Protein backbone atom coordinates (compact mmCIF):
# COMPACT_ATOMS: atom_id res chain seq x y z
CA UNK A 1 0.00 0.00 0.00
CA UNK A 2 1.29 3.41 -0.93
CA UNK A 3 -0.69 5.33 1.67
CA UNK A 4 -2.17 3.74 4.77
CA UNK A 5 -4.42 5.66 7.13
CA UNK A 6 -5.23 3.80 10.34
CA UNK A 7 -8.04 4.84 12.68
CA UNK A 8 -7.44 8.54 12.27
CA UNK A 9 -9.58 11.01 14.19
CA UNK A 10 -9.39 14.80 14.00
CA UNK A 11 -11.38 17.07 16.27
CA UNK A 12 -11.16 20.83 15.75
CA UNK A 13 -10.90 23.37 18.55
CA UNK A 14 -14.63 24.14 18.30
CA UNK A 15 -15.42 20.49 19.01
CA UNK A 16 -16.35 19.59 15.43
CA UNK A 17 -15.18 16.08 14.57
CA UNK A 18 -13.95 16.42 11.01
CA UNK A 19 -12.51 12.93 10.65
CA UNK A 20 -13.96 10.15 12.76
CA UNK A 21 -11.92 6.96 13.13
CA UNK A 22 -11.10 6.62 9.44
CA UNK A 23 -9.00 3.83 7.99
CA UNK A 24 -8.03 3.83 4.35
CA UNK A 25 -5.53 2.09 2.10
CA UNK A 26 -4.45 3.55 -1.20
CA UNK A 27 -2.67 1.37 -3.73
CA UNK A 28 0.61 2.46 -5.32
CA UNK A 29 0.25 4.07 -8.73
CA UNK A 30 -3.50 4.49 -8.41
CA UNK A 31 -5.59 7.60 -8.82
CA UNK A 32 -8.04 7.64 -5.93
CA UNK A 33 -10.84 10.13 -5.42
CA UNK A 34 -12.06 11.13 -1.98
CA UNK A 35 -15.65 12.05 -2.72
CA UNK A 36 -18.10 13.67 -0.36
CA UNK A 37 -20.21 16.72 0.39
CA UNK A 38 -18.62 19.77 2.00
CA UNK A 39 -17.92 19.16 5.67
CA UNK A 40 -17.54 15.42 5.13
CA UNK A 41 -13.90 15.52 6.24
CA UNK A 42 -12.32 14.66 2.89
CA UNK A 43 -10.08 17.75 2.73
CA UNK A 44 -9.08 17.39 6.37
CA UNK A 45 -8.10 13.78 5.74
CA UNK A 46 -5.99 14.85 2.76
CA UNK A 47 -4.32 17.56 4.84
CA UNK A 48 -3.60 14.99 7.56
CA UNK A 49 -1.89 12.78 4.97
CA UNK A 50 0.20 15.78 3.90
CA UNK A 51 1.05 16.71 7.50
CA UNK A 52 -0.71 20.07 7.27
CA UNK A 53 -3.08 18.96 10.04
CA UNK A 54 -2.17 16.80 13.03
CA UNK A 55 -4.55 13.96 13.83
CA UNK A 56 -5.72 13.55 17.43
CA UNK A 57 -5.55 9.79 17.08
CA UNK A 58 -4.38 7.27 14.53
CA UNK A 59 -1.47 6.76 12.19
CA UNK A 60 -0.53 7.66 8.67
CA UNK A 61 2.13 5.88 6.70
CA UNK A 62 3.49 6.59 3.26
CA UNK A 63 5.30 3.82 1.36
CA UNK A 64 5.47 1.77 4.55
CA UNK A 65 7.08 4.52 6.60
CA UNK A 66 5.14 5.85 9.60
CA UNK A 67 4.93 9.62 9.03
CA UNK A 68 2.39 10.48 11.75
CA UNK A 69 4.76 12.73 13.70
CA UNK A 70 6.75 13.95 10.73
CA UNK A 71 6.60 17.56 9.49
CA UNK A 72 5.14 18.23 6.01
CA UNK A 73 8.61 19.34 4.86
CA UNK A 74 9.94 15.82 5.30
CA UNK A 75 7.01 13.80 3.94
CA UNK A 76 7.90 14.18 0.26
CA UNK A 77 4.32 14.74 -0.82
CA UNK A 78 3.15 17.00 -3.61
CA UNK A 79 0.16 19.12 -2.64
CA UNK A 80 -2.08 21.12 -4.97
CA UNK A 81 -4.56 23.61 -3.53
CA UNK A 82 -8.00 24.63 -4.78
CA UNK A 83 -6.94 28.25 -5.15
CA UNK A 84 -3.55 27.38 -6.72
CA UNK A 85 -1.39 28.86 -3.90
CA UNK A 86 0.81 30.34 -6.62
CA UNK A 87 3.84 32.27 -5.37
CA UNK A 88 2.69 35.55 -6.88
CA UNK A 89 6.04 37.32 -6.65
CA UNK A 90 7.87 34.61 -8.63
CA UNK A 91 7.81 33.77 -12.31
CA UNK A 92 6.30 30.50 -13.47
CA UNK A 93 9.84 29.12 -13.81
CA UNK A 94 10.77 30.10 -10.23
CA UNK A 95 7.50 28.72 -8.91
CA UNK A 96 8.13 25.32 -10.51
CA UNK A 97 11.79 25.32 -9.47
CA UNK A 98 11.12 26.38 -5.86
CA UNK A 99 11.31 22.92 -4.29
CA UNK A 100 14.52 22.11 -6.15
CA UNK A 101 16.09 25.42 -5.14
CA UNK A 102 15.26 24.66 -1.50
CA UNK A 103 17.01 21.29 -2.02
CA UNK A 104 20.05 23.21 -3.30
CA UNK A 105 20.25 21.43 -6.65
CA UNK A 106 22.65 22.67 -9.32
CA UNK A 107 21.26 25.61 -11.28
CA UNK A 108 21.62 23.81 -14.59
CA UNK A 109 19.82 20.74 -13.24
CA UNK A 110 16.97 22.87 -11.94
CA UNK A 111 16.66 24.59 -15.29
CA UNK A 112 16.56 21.30 -17.18
CA UNK A 113 14.03 19.75 -14.82
CA UNK A 114 11.79 22.85 -14.89
CA UNK A 115 11.91 22.95 -18.69
CA UNK A 116 10.89 19.30 -18.82
CA UNK A 117 7.97 19.88 -16.45
CA UNK A 118 6.79 23.02 -18.23
CA UNK A 119 6.74 20.96 -21.40
CA UNK A 120 4.68 18.31 -19.62
CA UNK A 121 2.08 20.81 -18.40
CA UNK A 122 2.17 22.75 -21.69
CA UNK A 123 3.41 26.01 -20.21
CA UNK A 124 6.82 26.28 -21.91
CA UNK A 125 6.01 29.61 -23.50
CA UNK A 126 4.86 31.06 -20.17
CA UNK A 127 8.06 30.38 -18.20
CA UNK A 128 8.89 34.03 -17.61
CA UNK A 129 5.38 35.21 -16.84
CA UNK A 130 4.04 35.86 -13.37
CA UNK A 131 1.06 33.89 -12.02
CA UNK A 132 -1.05 37.05 -12.21
CA UNK A 133 -0.72 36.88 -15.99
CA UNK A 134 -2.07 33.33 -16.26
CA UNK A 135 -5.62 32.03 -16.42
CA UNK A 136 -6.94 29.83 -13.62
CA UNK A 137 -6.37 26.64 -15.60
CA UNK A 138 -2.79 27.65 -16.41
CA UNK A 139 -2.10 28.52 -12.77
CA UNK A 140 -3.34 25.12 -11.66
CA UNK A 141 -1.15 23.35 -14.23
CA UNK A 142 1.79 25.39 -12.93
CA UNK A 143 0.93 24.32 -9.37
CA UNK A 144 0.87 20.71 -10.53
CA UNK A 145 4.27 21.04 -12.19
CA UNK A 146 5.62 22.67 -9.01
CA UNK A 147 4.37 19.75 -6.92
CA UNK A 148 5.78 17.18 -9.37
CA UNK A 149 9.21 18.89 -9.57
CA UNK A 150 10.40 17.41 -6.28
CA UNK A 151 9.38 13.91 -7.41
CA UNK A 152 6.97 13.33 -4.54
CA UNK A 153 6.11 9.87 -3.28
CA UNK A 154 2.43 10.77 -3.51
CA UNK A 155 0.50 13.59 -5.13
CA UNK A 156 -2.38 15.10 -3.15
CA UNK A 157 -4.91 17.30 -4.93
CA UNK A 158 -7.42 19.28 -2.85
CA UNK A 159 -10.41 20.19 -5.04
CA UNK A 160 -7.92 21.14 -7.77
CA UNK A 161 -10.53 22.15 -10.32
CA UNK A 162 -13.04 23.60 -7.88
CA UNK A 163 -12.32 27.22 -8.72
CA UNK A 164 -12.45 26.77 -12.50
CA UNK A 165 -15.41 27.13 -14.83
CA UNK A 166 -17.20 24.02 -16.09
CA UNK A 167 -15.55 23.81 -19.51
CA UNK A 168 -11.99 24.28 -18.26
CA UNK A 169 -12.70 21.84 -15.45
CA UNK A 170 -13.64 19.09 -17.91
CA UNK A 171 -10.60 19.74 -20.09
CA UNK A 172 -8.23 19.69 -17.14
CA UNK A 173 -9.86 16.54 -15.79
CA UNK A 174 -9.17 14.67 -19.03
CA UNK A 175 -5.68 16.15 -19.10
CA UNK A 176 -4.99 15.05 -15.52
CA UNK A 177 -6.05 11.51 -16.39
CA UNK A 178 -3.60 11.43 -19.33
CA UNK A 179 -0.88 12.97 -17.15
CA UNK A 180 -1.40 10.30 -14.51
CA UNK A 181 -1.11 7.58 -17.14
CA UNK A 182 2.22 9.14 -18.13
CA UNK A 183 3.70 9.91 -14.72
CA UNK A 184 2.16 7.10 -12.64
CA UNK A 185 2.61 8.78 -9.28
CA UNK A 186 0.13 7.65 -6.63
CA UNK A 187 -2.50 10.39 -6.60
CA UNK A 188 -5.32 11.26 -4.22
CA UNK A 189 -7.89 13.73 -5.47
CA UNK A 190 -10.46 15.38 -3.20
CA UNK A 191 -13.70 16.42 -4.87
CA UNK A 192 -17.37 16.97 -4.13
CA UNK A 193 -18.27 16.38 -7.78
CA UNK A 194 -19.31 12.75 -8.32
CA UNK A 195 -18.97 13.07 -12.09
CA UNK A 196 -15.39 14.24 -11.70
CA UNK A 197 -14.59 11.40 -9.31
CA UNK A 198 -16.15 8.76 -11.57
CA UNK A 199 -14.47 10.26 -14.62
CA UNK A 200 -10.82 10.42 -13.52
CA UNK A 201 -10.36 8.00 -10.65
CA UNK A 202 -9.57 4.26 -10.65
CA UNK A 203 -11.01 4.03 -7.18
CA UNK A 204 -13.43 6.20 -5.28
CA UNK A 205 -13.83 6.53 -1.52
CA UNK A 206 -17.12 8.12 -0.51
CA UNK A 207 -17.02 10.08 2.73
CA UNK A 208 -19.81 11.54 4.83
CA UNK A 209 -19.84 13.07 8.32
CA UNK A 210 -16.16 12.33 8.84
CA UNK A 211 -16.53 8.63 8.05
CA UNK A 212 -15.86 6.42 5.05
CA UNK A 213 -19.15 5.16 3.60
CA UNK A 214 -17.69 2.96 0.87
CA UNK A 215 -14.55 2.45 -1.21
CA UNK A 216 -14.42 0.79 -4.56
CA UNK A 217 -14.19 1.07 -8.32
CA UNK A 218 -16.46 3.79 -9.72
CA UNK A 219 -18.66 1.20 -11.42
CA UNK A 220 -19.04 -0.92 -8.28
CA UNK A 221 -20.10 2.10 -6.30
CA UNK A 222 -22.69 2.95 -8.90
CA UNK A 223 -23.97 -0.61 -9.35
CA UNK A 224 -23.68 -1.85 -5.77
CA UNK A 225 -23.85 1.09 -3.40
CA UNK A 226 -23.44 0.05 0.22
CA UNK A 227 -26.11 2.37 1.55
CA UNK A 228 -28.60 5.11 0.77
CA UNK A 229 -26.02 7.85 1.08
CA UNK A 230 -23.68 6.36 -1.52
CA UNK A 231 -26.60 5.51 -3.81
CA UNK A 232 -27.85 9.09 -3.81
CA UNK A 233 -24.40 10.69 -3.89
CA UNK A 234 -22.87 8.87 -6.87
CA UNK A 235 -25.80 9.53 -9.21
CA UNK A 236 -29.35 10.82 -9.51
CA UNK A 237 -31.96 8.66 -7.82
CA UNK A 238 -35.72 8.41 -7.25
CA UNK A 239 -36.94 7.24 -3.92
CA UNK A 240 -40.30 5.52 -3.68
CA UNK A 241 -40.96 4.14 -0.23
CA UNK A 242 -38.09 1.79 0.52
CA UNK A 243 -37.12 1.44 -3.11
CA UNK A 244 -34.39 3.43 -4.76
CA UNK A 245 -34.52 3.66 -8.53
CA UNK A 246 -32.04 5.22 -10.94
CA UNK A 247 -33.82 7.45 -13.49
CA UNK A 248 -32.58 5.26 -16.36
CA UNK A 249 -34.18 2.21 -14.70
CA UNK A 250 -37.69 3.59 -15.16
CA UNK A 251 -39.53 2.14 -18.16
CA UNK A 252 -42.13 4.32 -19.90
CA UNK A 253 -45.15 2.81 -21.72
CA UNK A 254 -48.25 4.20 -23.37
CA UNK A 255 -50.50 1.34 -22.15
CA UNK A 256 -50.83 -0.17 -18.65
CA UNK A 257 -49.81 -3.84 -18.26
CA UNK A 258 -50.77 -4.63 -14.68
CA UNK A 259 -47.37 -3.93 -13.11
CA UNK A 260 -47.24 -0.30 -14.15
CA UNK A 261 -48.31 2.88 -12.38
CA UNK A 262 -50.07 5.83 -13.93
CA UNK A 263 -48.09 9.07 -14.25
CA UNK A 264 -48.47 12.48 -15.83
CA UNK A 265 -45.63 13.96 -17.90
CA UNK A 266 -44.89 17.27 -16.23
CA UNK A 267 -41.83 18.40 -18.09
CA UNK A 268 -39.55 17.09 -20.84
CA UNK A 269 -35.96 18.33 -20.59
CA UNK A 270 -33.71 17.79 -23.62
CA UNK A 271 -30.05 17.33 -22.63
CA UNK A 272 -28.71 16.35 -26.04
CA UNK A 273 -28.80 12.61 -26.55
CA UNK A 274 -30.43 12.10 -23.18
CA UNK A 275 -33.86 13.35 -22.23
CA UNK A 276 -35.06 13.77 -18.69
CA UNK A 277 -38.78 13.23 -18.26
CA UNK A 278 -40.20 14.66 -15.05
CA UNK A 279 -43.28 12.77 -13.94
CA UNK A 280 -45.99 13.13 -11.30
CA UNK A 281 -47.42 9.80 -10.10
CA UNK A 282 -51.15 9.57 -9.44
CA UNK A 283 -50.47 9.82 -5.69
CA UNK A 284 -48.68 13.15 -6.24
CA UNK A 285 -45.08 11.95 -5.83
CA UNK A 286 -42.47 13.27 -8.25
CA UNK A 287 -40.03 11.02 -10.09
CA UNK A 288 -37.76 11.60 -13.02
CA UNK A 289 -36.92 9.18 -15.80
CA UNK A 290 -33.90 9.26 -18.04
CA UNK A 291 -34.52 8.08 -21.60
CA UNK A 292 -32.96 8.56 -25.01
CA UNK A 293 -34.16 11.05 -27.60
CA UNK A 294 -35.22 8.12 -29.78
CA UNK A 295 -37.54 6.74 -27.10
CA UNK A 296 -39.21 10.12 -26.61
CA UNK A 297 -39.83 10.37 -30.34
CA UNK A 298 -41.14 6.80 -30.54
CA UNK A 299 -43.58 7.35 -27.66
CA UNK A 300 -44.45 10.82 -29.03
CA UNK A 301 -44.32 12.14 -25.48
CA UNK A 302 -45.94 15.48 -24.77
CA UNK A 303 -46.06 17.50 -21.59
CA UNK A 304 -49.36 16.93 -19.78
CA UNK A 305 -49.80 13.45 -21.24
CA UNK A 306 -50.79 10.43 -19.08
CA UNK A 307 -48.39 7.48 -19.39
CA UNK A 308 -47.52 4.32 -17.45
CA UNK A 309 -44.21 3.61 -15.72
CA UNK A 310 -42.52 0.57 -14.31
CA UNK A 311 -39.11 0.25 -12.64
CA UNK A 312 -36.90 -2.27 -14.41
CA UNK A 313 -34.53 -2.40 -11.48
CA UNK A 314 -34.74 -1.21 -7.91
CA UNK A 315 -32.47 -1.25 -4.89
CA UNK A 316 -33.67 -1.80 -1.33
CA UNK A 317 -31.27 -1.20 1.56
CA UNK A 318 -30.94 -2.96 4.91
CA UNK A 319 -33.47 -5.64 3.89
CA UNK A 320 -36.04 -4.49 6.43
CA UNK A 321 -38.66 -3.43 3.94
CA UNK A 322 -40.84 -5.66 1.78
CA UNK A 323 -40.48 -5.25 -1.95
CA UNK A 324 -43.37 -3.21 -3.18
CA UNK A 325 -44.75 -1.60 -6.31
CA UNK A 326 -44.70 2.06 -7.00
CA UNK A 327 -47.76 2.61 -4.86
Amino acid sequence: MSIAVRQVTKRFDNGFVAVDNVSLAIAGGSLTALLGPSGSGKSTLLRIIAGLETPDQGEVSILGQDVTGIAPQKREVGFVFQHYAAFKHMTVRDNVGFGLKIRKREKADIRAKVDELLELVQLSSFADRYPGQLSGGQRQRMALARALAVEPKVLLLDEPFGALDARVRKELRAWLRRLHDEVHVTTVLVTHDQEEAMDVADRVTVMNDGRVEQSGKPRDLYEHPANEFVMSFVGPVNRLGEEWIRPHDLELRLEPNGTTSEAMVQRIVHLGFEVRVELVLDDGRHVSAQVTRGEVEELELLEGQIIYVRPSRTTVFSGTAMPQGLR
Partner: protein
Amino acid sequence: MRSGNAPRYGLRVIALGYLLLLLALPFGAIVYYTFQDGVQPVLDALTDESFIAALKLTLIAVLIAVPANTIFGVACAMALVRHPPRRGTWFINSLIGLPLALSPVVVGLALILVYGQDGWFGTWLVENGIEVIFSTPGIVLATIFVTLPFVVREVIPVLREVGTDQDEAAWTLGASRFQTFFRITLPAIRWGVAYGVVLTMARALGEYGAVAVVSGRLAGKTETLTLHVDEEYLRFNEVAAYTTSLVLAALAVATLVLMNVFKPKEYKEVADVDRRPPGHQAV
Protein backbone atom coordinates in the same frame (compact mmCIF):
# COMPACT_ATOMS: atom_id res chain seq x y z
CA MET B 1 -24.33 66.93 -22.43
CA ARG B 2 -23.83 69.99 -20.27
CA SER B 3 -25.82 68.58 -17.37
CA GLY B 4 -23.84 65.32 -17.72
CA ASN B 5 -20.46 67.03 -17.44
CA ALA B 6 -21.36 69.58 -14.78
CA PRO B 7 -21.00 67.27 -11.78
CA ARG B 8 -17.68 65.96 -13.05
CA TYR B 9 -16.15 69.43 -13.48
CA GLY B 10 -17.75 70.56 -10.25
CA LEU B 11 -16.08 67.76 -8.33
CA ARG B 12 -12.73 68.46 -9.96
CA VAL B 13 -12.90 72.14 -9.07
CA ILE B 14 -13.76 71.34 -5.46
CA ALA B 15 -11.03 68.69 -5.12
CA LEU B 16 -8.32 70.78 -6.77
CA GLY B 17 -9.37 73.95 -4.96
CA TYR B 18 -9.21 72.14 -1.65
CA LEU B 19 -5.73 70.76 -2.37
CA LEU B 20 -4.53 74.16 -3.62
CA LEU B 21 -5.76 76.13 -0.64
CA LEU B 22 -4.78 73.70 2.09
CA LEU B 23 -1.65 72.02 0.71
CA ALA B 24 -0.05 73.65 -2.30
CA LEU B 25 -0.41 77.27 -1.23
CA PRO B 26 1.09 76.97 2.27
CA PHE B 27 3.85 74.71 0.98
CA GLY B 28 4.57 77.12 -1.89
CA ALA B 29 4.72 79.95 0.61
CA ILE B 30 7.41 78.14 2.59
CA VAL B 31 9.46 77.58 -0.53
CA TYR B 32 9.04 81.25 -1.49
CA TYR B 33 10.00 82.64 1.90
CA THR B 34 12.93 80.27 2.27
CA PHE B 35 14.59 81.71 -0.80
CA GLN B 36 13.35 85.31 -0.48
CA ASP B 37 16.83 86.57 0.44
CA GLY B 38 18.66 84.31 -1.99
CA VAL B 39 20.57 81.10 -1.53
CA GLN B 40 23.29 82.22 0.92
CA PRO B 41 21.11 82.45 4.07
CA VAL B 42 19.74 78.99 3.23
CA LEU B 43 23.26 77.58 2.98
CA ASP B 44 24.13 79.26 6.26
CA ALA B 45 21.14 77.67 7.93
CA LEU B 46 22.04 74.25 6.48
CA THR B 47 25.61 74.45 7.80
CA ASP B 48 24.62 75.78 11.21
CA GLU B 49 25.85 73.45 13.97
CA SER B 50 22.53 73.27 15.78
CA PHE B 51 20.79 72.37 12.50
CA ILE B 52 23.26 69.56 11.79
CA ALA B 53 22.87 68.27 15.34
CA ALA B 54 19.08 68.33 15.00
CA LEU B 55 19.26 66.52 11.65
CA LYS B 56 21.51 63.87 13.20
CA LEU B 57 19.21 63.36 16.16
CA THR B 58 16.14 63.07 13.96
CA LEU B 59 17.89 60.53 11.72
CA ILE B 60 19.03 58.52 14.76
CA ALA B 61 15.47 58.44 16.10
CA VAL B 62 14.12 57.39 12.67
CA LEU B 63 16.83 54.80 12.07
CA ILE B 64 16.12 53.12 15.41
CA ALA B 65 12.33 53.53 15.57
CA VAL B 66 11.60 52.35 12.02
CA PRO B 67 13.49 49.00 12.12
CA ALA B 68 12.34 48.35 15.70
CA ASN B 69 8.69 48.93 14.92
CA THR B 70 8.94 47.09 11.59
CA ILE B 71 10.29 43.94 13.22
CA PHE B 72 7.88 44.21 16.14
CA GLY B 73 4.99 45.07 13.83
CA VAL B 74 5.47 42.11 11.49
CA ALA B 75 6.03 39.68 14.38
CA CYS B 76 3.00 40.99 16.25
CA ALA B 77 0.78 40.84 13.14
CA MET B 78 1.95 37.27 12.42
CA ALA B 79 1.12 36.25 15.98
CA LEU B 80 -2.30 37.89 15.95
CA VAL B 81 -3.34 36.58 12.52
CA ARG B 82 -1.73 33.15 12.40
CA HIS B 83 -1.99 32.16 16.08
CA PRO B 84 -4.77 34.31 17.50
CA PRO B 85 -5.20 33.99 21.27
CA ARG B 86 -8.46 32.32 22.30
CA ARG B 87 -9.55 35.47 24.10
CA GLY B 88 -8.44 39.02 24.66
CA THR B 89 -7.65 39.87 21.02
CA TRP B 90 -9.71 43.06 21.40
CA PHE B 91 -7.51 44.07 24.34
CA ILE B 92 -4.27 43.57 22.39
CA ASN B 93 -5.74 45.45 19.41
CA SER B 94 -6.78 48.37 21.61
CA LEU B 95 -3.37 48.45 23.23
CA ILE B 96 -1.67 48.59 19.84
CA GLY B 97 -4.01 51.37 18.74
CA LEU B 98 -3.45 53.39 21.90
CA PRO B 99 -0.61 55.59 20.55
CA LEU B 100 -2.94 56.72 17.75
CA ALA B 101 -5.64 57.81 20.16
CA LEU B 102 -3.45 59.23 22.88
CA SER B 103 -2.22 62.83 22.72
CA PRO B 104 1.57 62.79 22.19
CA VAL B 105 1.99 65.17 25.13
CA VAL B 106 0.51 62.49 27.40
CA VAL B 107 2.96 59.96 25.91
CA GLY B 108 5.84 62.26 26.80
CA LEU B 109 4.59 62.74 30.35
CA ALA B 110 4.05 59.02 30.79
CA LEU B 111 7.65 58.34 29.75
CA ILE B 112 8.90 60.89 32.29
CA LEU B 113 6.84 59.17 35.00
CA VAL B 114 8.56 55.87 34.27
CA TYR B 115 12.08 56.84 33.19
CA GLY B 116 12.47 60.34 34.70
CA GLN B 117 14.68 61.08 37.70
CA ASP B 118 11.73 60.68 40.06
CA GLY B 119 10.14 57.93 37.96
CA TRP B 120 9.80 54.19 38.67
CA PHE B 121 13.15 53.30 37.14
CA GLY B 122 14.66 56.71 37.89
CA THR B 123 16.82 55.77 40.87
CA TRP B 124 18.20 52.68 39.19
CA LEU B 125 18.96 54.61 35.99
CA VAL B 126 20.71 57.43 37.87
CA GLU B 127 22.77 54.96 39.89
CA ASN B 128 23.92 53.28 36.71
CA GLY B 129 24.65 56.57 35.00
CA ILE B 130 22.06 56.11 32.28
CA GLU B 131 20.29 59.21 31.04
CA VAL B 132 16.94 58.64 29.35
CA ILE B 133 14.82 61.73 29.79
CA PHE B 134 16.34 64.97 28.40
CA SER B 135 18.64 62.80 26.31
CA THR B 136 18.74 60.78 23.08
CA PRO B 137 17.28 57.52 24.53
CA GLY B 138 14.17 59.39 25.71
CA ILE B 139 13.64 60.90 22.27
CA VAL B 140 14.07 57.51 20.63
CA LEU B 141 11.64 55.92 23.10
CA ALA B 142 9.05 58.64 22.50
CA THR B 143 9.41 58.21 18.74
CA ILE B 144 9.04 54.42 19.01
CA PHE B 145 5.97 54.83 21.21
CA VAL B 146 4.06 57.15 18.88
CA THR B 147 4.96 55.21 15.70
CA LEU B 148 4.23 51.74 17.09
CA PRO B 149 0.81 51.05 15.48
CA PHE B 150 1.53 51.77 11.82
CA VAL B 151 3.28 48.60 10.63
CA VAL B 152 1.04 46.27 12.68
CA ARG B 153 -2.10 47.96 11.43
CA GLU B 154 -1.01 47.83 7.79
CA VAL B 155 0.26 44.25 7.89
CA ILE B 156 -2.66 42.56 9.68
CA PRO B 157 -5.22 42.97 6.84
CA VAL B 158 -2.63 42.01 4.21
CA LEU B 159 -1.71 38.85 6.10
CA ARG B 160 -5.39 37.92 6.38
CA GLU B 161 -5.86 38.53 2.66
CA VAL B 162 -2.80 36.46 1.68
CA GLY B 163 -3.93 33.48 3.78
CA THR B 164 -1.81 30.42 4.51
CA ASP B 165 -2.01 28.51 1.20
CA GLN B 166 1.30 29.81 -0.13
CA ASP B 167 3.09 29.02 3.12
CA GLU B 168 1.65 25.52 3.22
CA ALA B 169 2.62 24.96 -0.40
CA ALA B 170 6.18 25.99 0.47
CA TRP B 171 6.26 23.58 3.43
CA THR B 172 5.16 20.63 1.30
CA LEU B 173 7.92 21.59 -1.15
CA GLY B 174 10.45 21.21 1.67
CA ALA B 175 10.95 24.82 2.80
CA SER B 176 11.58 25.26 6.53
CA ARG B 177 9.50 27.77 8.49
CA PHE B 178 12.44 30.18 8.37
CA GLN B 179 12.86 29.80 4.59
CA THR B 180 9.12 30.07 4.09
CA PHE B 181 8.94 33.31 6.05
CA PHE B 182 11.72 35.04 4.13
CA ARG B 183 11.00 33.63 0.66
CA ILE B 184 7.21 33.44 0.67
CA THR B 185 5.44 35.26 3.52
CA LEU B 186 7.53 38.41 3.60
CA PRO B 187 7.44 38.97 -0.19
CA ALA B 188 3.70 38.36 -0.13
CA ILE B 189 3.06 41.02 2.50
CA ARG B 190 5.82 43.44 1.48
CA TRP B 191 3.39 46.10 0.28
CA GLY B 192 1.69 46.23 3.62
CA VAL B 193 5.10 46.36 5.31
CA ALA B 194 6.39 49.05 2.93
CA TYR B 195 3.34 51.20 3.45
CA GLY B 196 3.59 50.76 7.21
CA VAL B 197 7.27 51.72 7.06
CA VAL B 198 6.47 54.87 5.08
CA LEU B 199 3.83 55.91 7.60
CA THR B 200 6.17 55.11 10.50
CA MET B 201 8.97 57.10 8.90
CA ALA B 202 6.75 60.08 8.15
CA ARG B 203 5.43 60.14 11.69
CA ALA B 204 8.91 59.63 13.19
CA LEU B 205 10.29 62.54 11.15
CA GLY B 206 7.43 64.81 12.03
CA GLU B 207 6.78 63.93 15.68
CA TYR B 208 6.71 67.03 17.84
CA GLY B 209 4.59 66.71 20.97
CA ALA B 210 5.96 63.62 22.70
CA VAL B 211 9.52 64.49 21.75
CA ALA B 212 9.09 68.09 22.98
CA VAL B 213 8.11 66.88 26.45
CA VAL B 214 11.02 64.46 26.94
CA SER B 215 13.74 66.39 25.10
CA GLY B 216 14.40 69.32 27.39
CA ARG B 217 15.17 71.31 24.21
CA LEU B 218 18.89 71.81 24.55
CA ALA B 219 19.87 73.32 21.21
CA GLY B 220 22.60 71.28 19.53
CA LYS B 221 22.02 68.40 21.94
CA THR B 222 18.44 67.22 22.36
CA GLU B 223 16.74 69.11 19.56
CA THR B 224 15.17 67.24 16.65
CA LEU B 225 14.35 68.89 13.32
CA THR B 226 10.77 69.69 14.30
CA LEU B 227 11.89 71.24 17.59
CA HIS B 228 14.59 73.14 15.69
CA VAL B 229 11.96 74.65 13.36
CA ASP B 230 9.98 75.85 16.36
CA GLU B 231 13.06 77.16 18.17
CA GLU B 232 14.38 79.14 15.19
CA TYR B 233 10.96 80.55 14.41
CA LEU B 234 10.51 81.79 17.97
CA ARG B 235 13.96 83.38 17.75
CA PHE B 236 12.90 85.21 14.56
CA ASN B 237 15.42 83.22 12.50
CA GLU B 238 12.72 82.71 9.91
CA VAL B 239 14.95 81.58 7.05
CA ALA B 240 16.46 78.87 9.26
CA ALA B 241 12.97 77.76 10.31
CA TYR B 242 11.76 77.64 6.69
CA THR B 243 14.90 75.87 5.50
CA THR B 244 14.53 73.19 8.17
CA SER B 245 10.87 72.80 7.21
CA LEU B 246 11.89 72.27 3.60
CA VAL B 247 14.42 69.63 4.66
CA LEU B 248 11.66 67.80 6.56
CA ALA B 249 9.42 67.98 3.50
CA ALA B 250 12.24 66.74 1.26
CA LEU B 251 12.83 63.75 3.56
CA ALA B 252 9.12 62.93 3.44
CA VAL B 253 9.08 63.12 -0.36
CA ALA B 254 12.25 60.98 -0.53
CA THR B 255 10.45 58.32 1.52
CA LEU B 256 7.58 58.19 -0.94
CA VAL B 257 9.91 58.12 -3.94
CA LEU B 258 11.92 55.25 -2.41
CA MET B 259 8.75 53.23 -2.06
CA ASN B 260 7.99 53.65 -5.75
CA VAL B 261 11.55 52.79 -6.78
CA PHE B 262 11.31 49.48 -4.98
CA LYS B 263 7.97 48.67 -6.54
CA PRO B 264 8.55 45.33 -8.31
CA LYS B 265 7.71 44.99 -11.95
CA GLU B 266 5.17 42.17 -11.77
CA TYR B 267 2.68 44.51 -10.17
CA LYS B 268 2.77 46.85 -13.13
CA GLU B 269 2.48 43.94 -15.56
CA VAL B 270 -0.43 42.41 -13.70
CA ALA B 271 -2.24 45.70 -14.02
CA ASP B 272 -1.74 45.51 -17.81
CA VAL B 273 -3.15 41.99 -17.97
CA ASP B 274 -6.21 43.04 -16.04
CA ARG B 275 -6.93 45.66 -18.64
CA ARG B 276 -7.31 43.06 -21.39
CA PRO B 277 -10.87 42.48 -22.55
CA PRO B 278 -12.69 39.68 -20.71
CA GLY B 279 -12.61 36.25 -22.30
CA HIS B 280 -9.20 37.00 -23.72
CA GLN B 281 -7.32 34.58 -21.50
CA ALA B 282 -6.40 31.15 -22.69
CA VAL B 283 -7.24 27.99 -20.74
